[in-house]
């Protein structure tokens, strides 16, 4: 048996690592003199400066979304300029109104149940004795959304059977000073308008007693 001459503690000699010789940068007298190159560089920066200044001179700034493919200033100067939100953007909530100004909400708790962030708090209440709606539906005596906790998933809107809660305001929560300013109660929610400027919805509401009302009315009580 032949014993290897190299000890096992010492690794076998490797072939030398292939090296790549990187050439020194080309130091021509022009580069070494520095001043011409500096002037050239200044010309480049100045060109950029004047091109961008020109675009701001006569209100002819590029639209940063539509025209920004060729360079130029891409800053969107909020709030004078805004990137438009798409039509189905889920913004702050609003509570829609009936024709008489009361909320469409019937306090069924579907939205607060569906809410994964548990940011909706509703306290349902019965209408007063003698009100036509008493016994059919309830109303929210308290309707509060914590917009700071909301994840803007839109499940509440999907869950609502009455089209009473919507997220079509097109607004995002502002940067307030304190947390309690993010708690929106029903007067605030009712005061917000949709993108069409309306506090109602396109979907008609059929009150009990209307001829279009599809469901049971008090007249069916006898059956």
């Amino acid at each position, binding site marked *: 048996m032949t014993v290897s001459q190299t000890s096992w503690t010492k690794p076998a000699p490797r072939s030398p690592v292939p090296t790549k010789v990187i050439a020194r940068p080309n130091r021509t007298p022009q580069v070494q003199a520095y001043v011409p190159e500096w002037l050239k560089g200044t010309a480049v920066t100045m060109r950029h*400066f004047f091109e*961008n200044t020109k675009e701001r001179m*006569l209100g002819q700034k590029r639209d940063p979304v*539509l*025209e920004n493919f060729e360079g130029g*200033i891409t800053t969107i100067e909020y709030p004078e*300029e805004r990137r438009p939100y*798409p039509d189905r953007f889920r913004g702050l909530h609003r509570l829609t109104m009936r024709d008489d100004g009361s909320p469409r909400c019937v306090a069924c708790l579907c939205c607060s149940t569906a809410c994964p962030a548990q940011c909706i708090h509703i306290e349902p209440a019965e209408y007063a004795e003698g009100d036509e709606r008493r016994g059919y539906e309830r109303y929210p005596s308290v309707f509060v959304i914590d917009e700071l906790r909301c994840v803007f998933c839109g499940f509440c809107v999907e869950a609502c059977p009455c089209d009473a809660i919507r997220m079509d305001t097109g*607004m995002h929560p502002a940067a307030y000073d304190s947390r309690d300013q993010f708690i929106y109660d029903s007067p605030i929610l009712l005061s917000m308008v949709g993108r069409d400027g309306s506090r109602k919805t396109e979907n008609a509401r059929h009150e009990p007693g209307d001829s279009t009302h599809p469901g049971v009315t008090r007249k069916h009580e006898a059956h």
Partner: protein
Amino acid sequence: MTWASLVFSFVKVLVVVLFLLNMAAITVWLDRRQSAMLQDRVGPNRAVVYLPSGIVRALLTLPAVLIAGALAVPMWAAAPGLEIPRMTQGVELAIFVAWSGLLLLSSHVRRNGAENAFDEAVGSIEPRAYFYRGLVAHVVAAVLVQLVPTSLNAPGGVAWGTGIAGSIAAGAVLMTALYASAKVPDGKVGIRLAGTLHAVADAIKLIWKEDLRPKNADKLLYAIAPLLAMFPALVTFAVIPMGSTLCFQDIDKNHALSFVDLANIAGVVDRTGVCAVGQIPVSLAVADLNVGLLYVFAIAGTGIIGAALAGWASNNKWALLGGLRATSQMVSYEVAMGLSITGLLMIVGSVHMQQIVDWQGRHAWGIFVQPVAFFLFLAALVAETKRVPFDQPEGESEIIAGYFLEYSGMKFGLFFLGEYAEFVFSSALLVTLFFGGYHLPFLDPDGVRVAIGNTTFYELKLTHLAVSLIHLGVFFGKTIIVTWLQVFIRWTLPRFRYDQLMKLGWTKLLPAALVNILVTGMIILGIEAASPGVQSGLQALCDVTQALVAVGGVLALVAIITGLLEPAKHKQVAVSSTARYALGAGGVKATKMGA
């Protein structure tokens, strides 16, 4: 020293300090804004002060009423006859106000839409057309006024041509201001001043910020270091002449400046600018020292102490390294700085700032007689003020922020302000030594005189007061322009390595400065030995450089204005879904809140 001269000196000090501090704050802002604008961003331009529209309207109209009054009243009062030069001034001013006002209006219409038919007509014309037509109108008016027959001035003729010209100018100013104030919307109006209010906001913020001191810092040295850094920047400006020497009449014959004399500035001075016998000359430098430039070097040298002390007193190794770097760098470059300027001093034969400026006015600007020295001096100056590419003392990548690393609040603010005040001062020094100081080409102390050699092409007499005011404006204007140009250095060049910095200073700038001195000396000897013909030829050559500056300046101004007014061409590309949404909503600019 009389009370009047004391008050006058106080005013000069106030002007210098206010100019330096305000320019320093604005330059801090300019630095950021310019860097953003050349990197396709906007930069800080959103600081805003809301004023009631009534106040904004008053701010627009009241100065206009004052200017109009100042234009029209003297023209009528001093115009029993038809003075062609004054009439020319009035008409030219009216034309200038007209075209620039229309240009502003067209810019407003393009931004905010037209309100009436006049707006629409103004906005529909290409903006450059106003400028071109304005230039043509300037030339045509200048020729037409010369054609007005002086016989109109005869008794029984029209003796109020000057008054009419003044009234036209005043009317143009008033019309522009009134129309602009009518455009101010009701309610509160946001004033932005192109973003310069950010300088104010920054200062307020720094003053109210917490002032921290490291636990083991040297209390006294830590506190006085920012003051020592600020001090030389303010004090060196004292010897820079801000304008030509003023001549006051000695009304009360006491051979000293008194308050009566202050109100009686000499009507005219002769072409040399030297005050007549009996008049009292008053320099527009805070301290008219005959050691001028040496004083600058001496005081600027003390700037090292602030940086070194700050580095030591902070009890921080990075700060200490920064302080050491600052010290060795400033000591090294002071040598090159002093030697590079020696050639110019040999030519002028004086270190008195006023005399250096006067020499440049009589012959040629320093940059033409000492082009090599200009670049050497510029490099040394940039290193001396510790700015890019020589800002190793505060190299963020190696020693965080250098010697002012531990400073916060207004102490940090003082370092910053001092650095930028020094920067503005360095521009003023460049202007004084290499760009003719307060001189404009072909503007002699007694008026405009376009001449090359012994041939005079055009002459216009101006009063001493008018020339002095122009000189004052020219000096500050040149300083601001050079500051603006120097900021470009920062956004163009990367930082050197520290050994490269030392090598550049000692093995390149220093020998080059010595060679420059040698060559300059030989040329001076050659010229002194040359025949009178050669010497007058050299004087003509100097006049040619002045003409070059004048023509170049005008061409650059025209090129910048026409370039900036050139319409930009944009192409809409709606490829992404966001862009398509934006297109449907009319784009980013049209989108209002809530949409």
